[in-house]
């Protein structure tokens, strides 16, 4: 069964360091999302790609976060410098292009980030 792959699964870093997360969506899924989930909260959208283009990054803290999907397939989310408040689960999701109706998002296992 096709799955969304993410790595690493766990990352511990010190504040002010740079971190990067990688996501490989399900083959053929043109739409890719990065979410952040803080413990006790629901996932919150950081950035949405359609193919290689960013279509929504309104909630991405652009002073320290960046995301790219250069060839429209896999994607990287970077934080530089990391802050204590960035400790969270970072989730990647993908779905087929087209209508959102009946076209659910599939999530990867996430990367658990701890900033010390």
């Amino acid at each position, binding site marked *: 069964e096709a799955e969304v792959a993410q790595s690493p699964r766990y990352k511990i870093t010190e504040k002010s360091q740079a971190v990067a997360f990688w996501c490989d969506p399900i083959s053929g899924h043109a739409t890719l999302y990065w979410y952040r989930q803080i413990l006790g909260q629901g996932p919150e*959208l950081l950035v949405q790609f359609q193919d290689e283009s960013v279509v929504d990054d309104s909630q991405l803290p652009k002073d320290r976060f960046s995301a790219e999907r250069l060839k429209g397939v896999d994607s990287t989310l970077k934080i530089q410098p990391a802050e204590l408040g960035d400790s969270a689960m970072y989730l990647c999701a993908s779905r087929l292009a087209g209508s959102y109706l009946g076209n659910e998002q599939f999530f990867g296992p996430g990367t658990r980030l701890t900033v010390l």
Partner: protein
Amino acid sequence: DQQVKQNSPSLSVQEGRISILNCDYTNSMFDYFLWYKKYPAEGPTFLISISSIKDKNEDGRFTVFLNKSAKHLSLHIVPSQPGDSAVYFCAASSNSGYSTLTFGKGTMLLVSP
């Protein structure tokens, strides 16, 4: 302002009984609703969805009910099984913008044998 609300942080149910998880929303533009299930250290997995043109959708032990006038939906699990113990997220989407999902905070369901 939270647009999707799950007011019960947790729910405990005995195996074999019905589990009812509730969700309220405030945005009238939402027209597609989903439930996701999440185990610890895993990503959310899609469970069931409902369009606003329906008031009920059923898939095996899982049924979602939508009350548009009350802006309320609920997920019924019958019968509940210990393997259903997880966090359940309600999510909503609309045709505006980029059709992103707005999630609630989740309800942790514990099904005891």
